[in-house]
């Protein structure tokens, strides 16, 4: 069993240090690269915080859609294959909701400021 602070606490504290203490001192192309670095750390913090809950919900939805068991990767392969073959499509109950929820969960980690994501947060159907 590993100790504390947790990985996400560490990535957050490093990102905050770079953001508040270092960024004001850096200019030019290095300032751009530093922002990329801070974004990467913020992304890791978000993933460490949100990933487990998202994966559990995704697995449950997938298991219902493809009626099999397996790892998240296996379940996704199964769904991908069924969409490719035409077995499953937008008429299949639950598919659209599943794809939307999975994608929104991804954006919450990857790019919560993406304009289309923010627009869709306001458009949640129910």
């Amino acid at each position, binding site marked *: 069993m590993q100790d504390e602070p947790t990985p996400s606490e560490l990535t957050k504290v490093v990102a905050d240090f770079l953001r508040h203490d270092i960024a004001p001192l850096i200019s030019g192309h290095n300032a751009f690269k530093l922002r990329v670095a801070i974004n990467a750390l913020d992304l890791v913090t978000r993933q460490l915080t949100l990933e487990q809950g998202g994966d559990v919900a995704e697995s449950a939805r997938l298991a219902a859609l493809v009626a099999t068991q397996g790892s998240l990767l296996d379940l996704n392969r199964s769904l991908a*294959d069924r969409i490719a073959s035409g077995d499953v*499509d937008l008429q299949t109950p639950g598919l659209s909701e599943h*794809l939307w929820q999975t994608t929104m969960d*991804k954006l919450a980690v*990857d790019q919560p400021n993406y304009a289309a994501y923010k627009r869709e947060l306001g458009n949640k159907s129910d």
Partner: protein
Amino acid sequence: MIEAELTRCVASWCPGATGVTVPAKLSGGASQETWTFDIVHPDGNIGAILRRAPKGYGAAPSRAAGLDNEAILMRLAFEAGVPSPRVLHVLGPEDDLSTGFIMQRVEGETIPRKILRDEQFAEARPLLARQLGTIAAGIHGLPRDKLPVLREMNSTKEIAEIEREYRSFGWPRPVFELALRWLRDHDPGPSEQVTLVHGDFRHGNLIIGPDGVRAVLDWELAHTSDPMEDLGWVCVNSWRFGEIDKPVGGFGSREDLFAGYEAAGRKVDPARVMFWEVMGTLRWGVMCCGMMQRFRLGPDHSMERALIGRRASETEIDLLRLLAPRA
């Protein structure tokens, strides 16, 4: 030192030039580099840009038109009145600078968020969608018999190519599968018109001034195909840079784009344009995944390249908004 070679090179075709200022590298990737410098001349310095393959670089990647072809296309565009930098010199073996070309530097802004936000572009912004339509028509009207040999593409080939690339990653993406099915079901087939297609005509590849578009850049993905491809790509949501209700680069409506295109004498097929917008959205997503692969394999192990892998999801939400809109 590149400065010495550039000095010799410039002397060979720019009468009166006395040298060059120290070149600064603007960008450098695996397949090409861009340098900025001035040609020193008693009548006034001439701003210039060198675009070349790095020394020792091998064959261009298969989708690229090649730097020599880029130079030809830019010259054709310039001569036909399409806003383009003037090509000053195409590099030859005697220049000892690898392959590529030198073009006159065009002043203006390329950064999309600045163009969409800064006061100096406020008057130009509402005019840009229509202007881009007219420019696209100019590109598509370039005489085919003067074009260099380019990749010949069509919608069916593009679907196959993008599917092959996506499957090569071995990573299941149900939203991409949905898009591939949609594209196959809506493949419009060979187009009546087959023209030069810029291949990366979008906000981000334009130099813009307060007076409007001053130059179209980055012809490296040029090929021949259905011209509606360029009108679709320019509307891909990622290239609206946050202004998601203005499809054309965040500037304006499709109607404006189409009006500019038709005012130049060419016809728009809106259904084909929508096909190519969906295709373009998927293509950008697959490109993001591909860059992630190249980050792992090298030679570019940069942070920026790694992070692009996490932009694939933006194309998934854009595909869902197009193909399975909610509410």
